[in-house]
């Protein structure tokens, strides 16, 4: 495979959308006709060698995609929820949403003592939590999803385990939400860390 072809292969691999011929020619610094014939021979060689990738000219330019023959395997690999172990930040964020839902993002951040932005984004992306309207102050509220229940093997949110089992100071009498907020503020150094309740 010559220099222009391999560079074009790399460029098409990196581009999410079809790339116009002239943009490719400019990037590989070759004349248009050289670029066009290199693309053609790249397309043929992928086909001839029965590779897993396909290069095609579509509306708007050239694009690379996976070969249709690999569709079944791709479905097996990708079309199931990704369930890597939850990071501590994700577990904390998800626990707050699960037990206090609906709960706003600022409230989650107050309880955790650090921002929950990226953890919440990942949980949304994986379909474990979703937006549930806005609080009266305009903050986005979150709740857990059907997928959450399924992945945790629960019938309903009420089946979540009783926190008492993990409660470090069960003698304290106050609503879960208040106690979480108080501990969060103490961690953030906003309040004296004494057990005032």
């Amino acid at each position, binding site marked *: 495979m010559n220099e222009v072809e391999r560079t074009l292969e790399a460029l098409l691999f990196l581009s999410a959308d079809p790339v116009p011929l002239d943009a490719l020619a400019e990037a590989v610094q070759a004349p248009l006709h050289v670029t066009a014939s290199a693309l053609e021979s790249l397309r043929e060689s992928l086909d001839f060698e029965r590779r897993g990738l396909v290069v095609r000219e579509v509306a708007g330019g050239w694009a690379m995609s996976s070969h249709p023959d690999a569709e079944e395997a791709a479905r097996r690999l990708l079309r199931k929820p990704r369930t890597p172990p*939850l990071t501590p930040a994700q577990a*904390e964020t*998800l626990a707050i949403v*699960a037990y206090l839902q609906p709960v706003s993002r600022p409230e989650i951040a107050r309880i955790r003592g650090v921002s929950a932005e990226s953890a919440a984004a990942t949980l949304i992306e994986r379909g474990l939590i979703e937006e549930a309207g806005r609080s009266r102050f305009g903050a986005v509220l979150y709740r857990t999803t059907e997928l959450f229940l399924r*992945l*945790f093997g629960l019938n309903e949110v009420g089946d*979540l385990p009783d926190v008492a089992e993990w409660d470090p100071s069960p003698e304290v009498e106050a609503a879960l939400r208040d*106690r979480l907020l108080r501990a969060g503020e103490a961690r953030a150094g906003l309040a004296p860390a004494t057990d005032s309740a």
Partner: protein
Amino acid sequence: MRAADLELDLDVFTGPFDLLLTLVLREELDLLEVDLADVVLTYLDHLEGRGELDLEVTTEFLVLIAALLELKSRLMLPREEVDFDLELEPGEAAEELLARLLEAHRFRGAASFLADRLADEEGHRFRSAPLPPWLRRARTDEAPTGVYAPALLGAALGGLLRMPAPIDLHHVTDVKVTVSERVAHLRALLRRGSFDFDEAVARADRTTVAVTLFALLELYKRGEATWTQDEPFAAITVRASASAASEAARA
């Protein structure tokens, strides 16, 4: 500009700040002779000249100058002090400084390795394209059930309910002497018109000496006292300031 590059022109040294640090650590320059206040003034001039504040560089400067001040103050302390066990011996201080220097050295090396490695690896670009639509959304009914244990959530919440331990302050000595006590003590001595500062702190521990000095400064601020000292380490004579004295006379 890094703080280390700050150009200095001091009585005992001319050159960049980092060279000063090196020479001090190699004992080729006596830290006791270096006027650290001049270093700070040079830096302030530099900041003024730039007209903007680079927090990273300023922080670096503060750390360096604080380390030098700490070292210098330790060097000035009499070694035989035994009742003052809050602080490290100069030797221990040097050990601690050395340990920090070595650790920082190690991680600076690792840092430049990582920076180079990232630059080398940059040519390997990964594709960041969304999945084709037919693969994009997993259906809930295809999801495996019970992948995660609900206990994970309970445990996470339990961790968040834990109050952090109160900050342990037992290593901080109790303040046994207050500025107002020492102010009263100095005022009593001032009634004689003047006194020697050594007299005011005779047999006092180091903390009391320091607090007495604060008290003296307070009296100066209020216009009640002033002092003279003929040469460094000579006796300090404290006397009621003129205005205070005249007021006392009127009273």
